[in-house]
């Protein structure tokens, strides 16, 4: 159980401004090994921005990010991914004209041989790598939807929104990350579908050793069921932190939500 306590991610005073808007304001937080953190707050409170700063899409204007003992504050997106952070996007960002398999393999970048000469001349080894990874992607996708796993070479653009979300999660999980960032994964899903999706994510977590998750979600039932801890943001500031039950009954939080919606 000692390993359970290992800190995976730390924000210290993380700040990001867009012109006059302070999207993140001195955000402090800590995430331990295997923990699922719910990040909640009204629209525009900085949830997505915290993902974007963490993954290197935006630079921080202040503060620091530590991941697995390394200061990754100013790392480019590629390096953050290499270190073991994978994500989905609030507005699905799949390559619609590519196949399911292609899209998942984009997420598998660091585990594939990207050498020019390997790819062009060692066709036999490449073929084996393709087949092995295909099998692995199929197994992963099967957890989410067995029917999808049989359509690996269909274009993603032909699929329903729910299926696209599932594929986006598979793209993030295929590289065995240490930290998974889910930005409103259940947007547009029914309660039943949301429930299924979360069960699938929990199932996958059992398979990947020590996977921590940060979940941005509006569906409070889902937050209550799966998170170990919640953080509430409002105007870029952390206003509350604790178990869902405590957070939900917090006065400030109720005000923020009533004021925001």
């Amino acid at each position: 159980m000692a390993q359970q306590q290992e800190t995976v991610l730390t924000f210290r005073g993380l700040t990001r401004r867009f012109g006059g808007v302070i999207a993140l304001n001195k955000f402090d937080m800590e995430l331990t090994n295997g923990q699922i953190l719910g990040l909640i707050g009204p629209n525009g409170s900085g949830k997505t921005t915290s993902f974007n700063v963490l993954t290197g899409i935006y630079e921080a204007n202040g503060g620091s990010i530590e991941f697995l003992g390394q200061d990754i504050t100013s790392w480019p997106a590629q390096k953050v991914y290499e270190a073991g952070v994978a994500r989905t996007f609030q507005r699905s960002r799949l390559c619609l004209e590519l196949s399911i398999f292609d899209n998942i393999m984009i997420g598998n970048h660091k585990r594939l041989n990207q050498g020019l000469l390997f790819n062009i001349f060692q066709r036999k080894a490449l073929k084996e790598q393709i087949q092995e990874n295909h099998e692995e992607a199929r197994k992963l996708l099967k957890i989410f939807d067995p029917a999808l796993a049989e359509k690996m070479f269909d274009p993603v653009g032909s699929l329903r929104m729910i299926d696209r979300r599932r594929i986006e999660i598979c793209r993030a999980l295929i590289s065995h990350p240490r930290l998974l960032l889910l930005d409103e994964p259940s947007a547009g899903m029914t309660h039943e579908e949301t429930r299924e999706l979360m069960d699938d994510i929990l199932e996958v977590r059992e398979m990947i050793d020590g996977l921590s998750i940060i979940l941005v979600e509006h569906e409070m039932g889902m937050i209550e069921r799966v998170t170990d801890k919640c953080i509430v943001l409002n105007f870029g500031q952390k206003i509350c932190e604790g178990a869902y039950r405590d957070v939900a009954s917090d006065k400030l939080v109720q005000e923020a939500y009533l004021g925001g919606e």
Partner: protein
Amino acid sequence: MTQSLKDKLVIILLAAVIAAFSITFIAIEEQVEIFALLVFAAALVLGGAKLGITASIAQSLARNERLMNFAFIAATIAVVFWFREDHFPLLMIATVLLYVIACCGLNIQFGFTGVVNFAGAAFFGVGCYTAAVLGDTSVPLLLVILLGGIIAAIVGSVLIIPVLRTRGHYAAVVTIAFGLLFRTFLEVNDTLGGPQGLGVSGMNLFGWDFNNNIEISENLEISFYMNYVVLALIMVVLTFVLMRRIERSWIGLNFDAVRLDETAAACFGINIKRWKIVAFTLGNFLAGTAGALYAMMLGFIAPSNFAFSDSLILVSIVLLGGMGSLWGTILAAGLVVLLPEKLQVIQEYRFLIYAVVMILILLFRPQGILPRGLRAYIPGWRG
């Protein structure tokens, strides 16, 4: 009849029809006849599409890729053999083949990776001038072709920083400026012949002079252009193999990811700069090799061959054929190079017609006439 036998027959028949059509098209001179042939072909294709025949042929082709490749090579050889004694048709065929190579280069840049390049003719031109300058030295000419590509790639590296820094329209403007600069540089540079240009010595392979007709017997003298056609065809096949291998590997996937969504690509470790540089360099290399052989074949080059309009023609071939589509590139290169030679109307209103066709394509069929399909890593394998 089994499915596989039927597929094979369909492919062989298709290759034969294409060969016969190409021969007729190149051979006839009468404007009305050419026009009638084109209308007939268009009707055939459109009718076939309506009846679903085109789709079923496409499936047969997809199931038998190897046979298809060989059938089309055989068809090309048949067309070439038909015109074995005629200079002009062979020159046109070789030109189409070399344009195919240059456009494959552009396809890597633009079709796969989304890196625009409106200076394709300039990189083709670097290959040409490499051949002109090195042709008289003792450097083996096969090596000169390779050097044409390498020097084009090196010259292209000047553009790498602006290409990486800018996107969309700005990148287009940067490459257009480079193309104009290249032409102006040639015009004022006397060692490179200035506006008058330079003579280029012909290809010579281990003592085999490409610029001599090949006398087989008293009544069969094969045009010297046959040498160039054969070498160009070999280069096309090699280019094709390279393109296919790139497309069907992680490299092709990275290219696509960079083109479609740079932010998502970066979030999954894809080094945007690296792949843009690889695509840009490789594309210019291909254009340069094609240019080197083209110059040897023509025997003479001048700056006016490398105008902005020539770069536009290369881009229009890529768009017309379908971005990233290899067979599309071949079909479009054939149409764009041959049609103006065959139809005088087009000759006169060439750019007007190009402009109209490009606008129509972009409006109504942005994926091109033979759209690129999904990536089939291993032909025939679907897990």
